[in-house]
């Protein structure tokens, strides 16, 4: 069975049906639908980071670089005055960002631990300053994307991206597929070696595996999906700006990941929702929301050692 843990199955049975029905509850309230879409997109991004950090043991502080690149690549390759095909451009963006990840990963993965954190940060900052200083990409303000892609596939128009509800379902669908995708590769023979490289790289080398190659493959996969999330984000509001690839974005994603529970993959969704929920709550309570937000996160990290996902797992174990 793909979803082995009870907590995981429980989460999926509650979360996805609930999210499917959400637009009915919200009854066309565009603000909340858009808000939820962007949380789903970010959850997808955090999930790709969880695969790197939690499953591969590769801690990066530069993952937002691919989030931003997803948007910028889309801006660069798409023609200005013509609606492009969504599926074709999804493919392009994943391939191009995978190619970039291959080169970056080749450099970055020679290091590990704290050095890897530093070098991923450095490379991400290089991209950040490149885009925020360049005139043709609109500097710190970023650029606008005026036309949304159309989504016909084999001549059938599937949905309309200008419609927030349609876009919401696209995000939900993407998130679900990403979850299943990660679960499949984690359960595969490839996943077996990835688990081995995380837990004991020395022994894995002694058994004859080229650890570097497996890490590189994982890095490329996670980066391509991170870029896909950025591509969705840029489509939602029709703009790309350098803050997408700033280190704060990477840092926020890491915090969400730790809140949700590292390595569980579905915890990424929990973490993103918990973080955004807290954010929303404190923001409406006080101007100094960051103070409370920070304290709440510190408390949660201390109390929930394995994140929210780990806590749910423990609860279910106790009951059974």
């Amino acid at each position, binding site marked *: 069975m793909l979803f082995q843990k009870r907590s995981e199955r429980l989460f999926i049975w509650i979360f996805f049906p609930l999210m499917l029905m959400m637009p009915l509850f919200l009854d066309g309230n565009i603000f909340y639908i858009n808000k939820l879409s962007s949380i789903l997109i970010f959850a997808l991004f955090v999930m790709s980071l969880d695969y790197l950090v939690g499953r591969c043991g590769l801690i990066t502080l530069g993952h937002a670089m691919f989030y931003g690149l997803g948007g910028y690549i889309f801006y660069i390759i798409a023609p200005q005055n013509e609606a492009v095909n969504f599926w074709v451009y999804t493919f392009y963006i994943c391939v191009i960002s995978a190619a970039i990840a291959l080169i970056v990963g080749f450099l970055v993965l020679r290091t590990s631990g704290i050095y890897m954190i530093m070098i991923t940060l450095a490379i991400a900052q290089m991209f950040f300053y490149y885009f925020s200083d360049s005139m043709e990409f609109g500097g710190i303000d970023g650029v606008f994307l005026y036309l949304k892609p159309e989504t016909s596939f084999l001549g059938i128009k599937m949905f309309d991206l200008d419609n927030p509800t349609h876009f919401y379902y696209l995000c939900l669908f993407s998130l679900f597929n990403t979850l299943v995708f990660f679960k*499949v590769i984690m359960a595969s*023979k490839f996943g*077996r070696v990835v*688990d081995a490289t995380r*837990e004991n790289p020395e022994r*894995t*080398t*002694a*058994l004859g595996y080229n650890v570097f190659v497996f890490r590189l493959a994982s890095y490329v996969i996670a980066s391509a999906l991170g870029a896909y999330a950025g591509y969705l984000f840029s489509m939602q509001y029709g703009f790309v700006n350098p803050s997408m690839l700033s280190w704060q974005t990477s840092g926020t994603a890491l915090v969400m990941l730790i809140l949700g529970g590292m390595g569980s993959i579905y915890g990424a969704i929990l973490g993103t929702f918990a973080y955004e929920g807290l954010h929303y709550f404190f923001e409406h309570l006080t101007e100094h929301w960051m103070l409370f937000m920070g304290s709440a996160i510190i408390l949660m990290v201390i109390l929930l050692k394995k994140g929210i996902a780990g806590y749910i797992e423990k609860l279910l174990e106790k009951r059974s």
Partner: protein
Amino acid sequence: MSQVMIETEGLCKHWGGLKALDDISLTFADKELHSIVGPNGAGKSTLLNLLCGTYKPTSGRILHKNEPIDSIKPYAFARRGIGRSFQKTNIYPSATCLENCAIAAQRYMGGSFNFLKPRNKEPVLLHIAEEALHKVGLGHRKDTVAAAVSYGEQRQLEIAMVLATSPCVLLLDEPMAGMGHEESALIIELLKQLKKEYCIVLVEHDMDAVFELSDLITVMVNGQHLVTGTVDAVREDPRVKEAYLGQGDEVY
């Protein structure tokens, strides 16, 4: 003497000014158990680490089946069938014993870049892994998480993992370290079986085990080769007595 599996020619390893290994020339033959003994710091583990590619030699050559292998990548040693176990238990603690061996077996079974095939749906691979566990007497522990089995059993698992890689040379670094008497006896029995099939290089402090198992013994002192010979020859050698056994009643 049967076919030579591994040969070292003038092997040296220097750490700065320290000569951990100095000009070691040895041959290890197939289907023989060759022990390496010596006091602490004699360079036994360093030699093993060179033979399995963890360290690169400062100078000298290593030949496997008459081909030089000292410049190949560390993981390539295992692919040539040079498997090693570690002095400090070096397993995947959160995985089950069976999974530990399955990781080892999957290397030569292939398909490690298969993203879709579920890892637990390959009977051949799991069978190999299970067989390796049975060989070391851990068959009943296959579904137990490796961190939860006893220390002695972890040592057995360590050997099972090497066996699951289908090696031709076994480099065993103190497989009996920290084991109880009964567990040691089990490993000795196991090694007796294994040396009929494999070329084994054994580094071990338990001298009873070494004398019982070895076809050849090499004694090392301070990174230098002192003597190589049969059990009886080494036992009678006055230099060995002086350097190693004769320093007191203490047995290392």
